[in-house]
């Protein structure tokens, strides 16, 4: 009985839980470092793994470091990999997106990137 328990415990320890890992940015709208013709309705970031909604945030600042997004950042519940925040109509200029996410296993990753509106 004890042997079976030990083997079960060992099997649990040694069974990889694939699907958990760091989440890195896969792509975004607007694209990282690119210029768009008009103010986009939202910033959307897709990650290469599932992220925790409670611990994942994104904000957008203008060149003067003033926050300009709507403050409604959320993780798409259907995919679990899309983080987005709404934007009001923005004037031409340079903006920076700051994101921070936690993958399902607790690994935090963060980053920032700029985009420009013509």
């Amino acid at each position: 009985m004890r042997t079976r328990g030990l083997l079960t415990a060992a099997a649990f320890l040694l069974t990889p839980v694939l699907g958990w890992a760091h989440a890195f940015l896969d792509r975004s709208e607007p694209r990282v470092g690119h210029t768009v013709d008009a103010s986009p309705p939202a910033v959307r970031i897709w990650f290469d793994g599932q992220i925790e909604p409670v611990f994942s945030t994104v904000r957008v600042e203008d060149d003067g470091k003033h926050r300009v997004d709507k403050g409604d950042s959320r993780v798409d519940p259907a995919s679990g990999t899309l983080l987005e925040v709404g934007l009001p109509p923005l004037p031409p200029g340079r903006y920076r997106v700051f994101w921070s996410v936690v993958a399902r296993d607790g690994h935090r990753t963060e980053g920032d990137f700029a985009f420009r509106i013509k």
Partner: protein
Amino acid sequence: MRGRTLYACALVLALILGGAHTAQAHGLIGKRFFPATLATDDPFVADELSLPTLSYLKLRGSEEAPPTKQFDLSGEFSKRLSPDLGISLGGTFTILDPDEGSTVTGFDNLEIAAKYVFFKSAPHELLLALGLSWDVGGTGSKKVDAESFDTWTPQLFFGKGFGDLPDQLELMKPLAITGVLGLAIPSRVHTKTFETDEDGNVDVKKPLNPTVFQWGFSVQYNLQYLQSNVRDVGLPAPLNRMIPIVELVLETPVDGRDAGRTTGSVNPGIIWFGRYFQLGLEAVIPINHDVSKDIGALAQIHFYLDDIWPQVFTWTPFHGVLGPTQPQ
């Protein structure tokens, strides 16, 4: 009795595998991911396994030994004991294939190391660590020249990403450097050897075991950093997870007849990192002909254990179980 043996095995397994994990994972400082470097040790403490690391180099001959092909098969297991403290255990199996004579094989000495990260700056992608490595004398085979004495190597590690450069230099931001400076101090200054000539006369030799300054650097350009933080240049997979890298691995004895004479190699190569492991391949180009006149090769598969087995590597003996940090 059998149950007791199984229990002991499970306990050893738990002791080996049980370790640390934090949300501040291996190789990440701020938004910068540093890969595990192949030829030099990186400054991070992590839960990881390098297995195998394969290397090949043809050693030049000397008056005492013919030119010899050297193949090394190495493995290293690393485990965090707290967010900033880690230990590692490494071993190497060596195959020496001389141009004349028979092939010799055997294990090199066991290597045990500890590392402590004492400074971190996420905004500046900067990391400093101190380490101590112990080459355990007598654990390897004399056939492959494993030393019979211990060698202690205190080390200083650093890693620096250039993401804090001004935006005018944005294409330089994916650059990063890592390095290690160490002093390998043998526990025995001289090794006494006895040689008997044809007439039966015994000659006692006491060659010096030199203290050696070991230094190495890596310069790396992270294409994932470029795509995610600087400019999406549309690189498809697997290029978007590649890191071109150049490593320098150098040794300079500080005493003995070769004092001040630096040997080593420049290793240009490429690392690809995925979510659970990374692959690395480097050429080994000797900086002079002291050790070799030919180009060698180095390849590695490196596993991120805390990503593969998070349920095992979430416990730290000195820091408890670590979960997600507080919402920002």
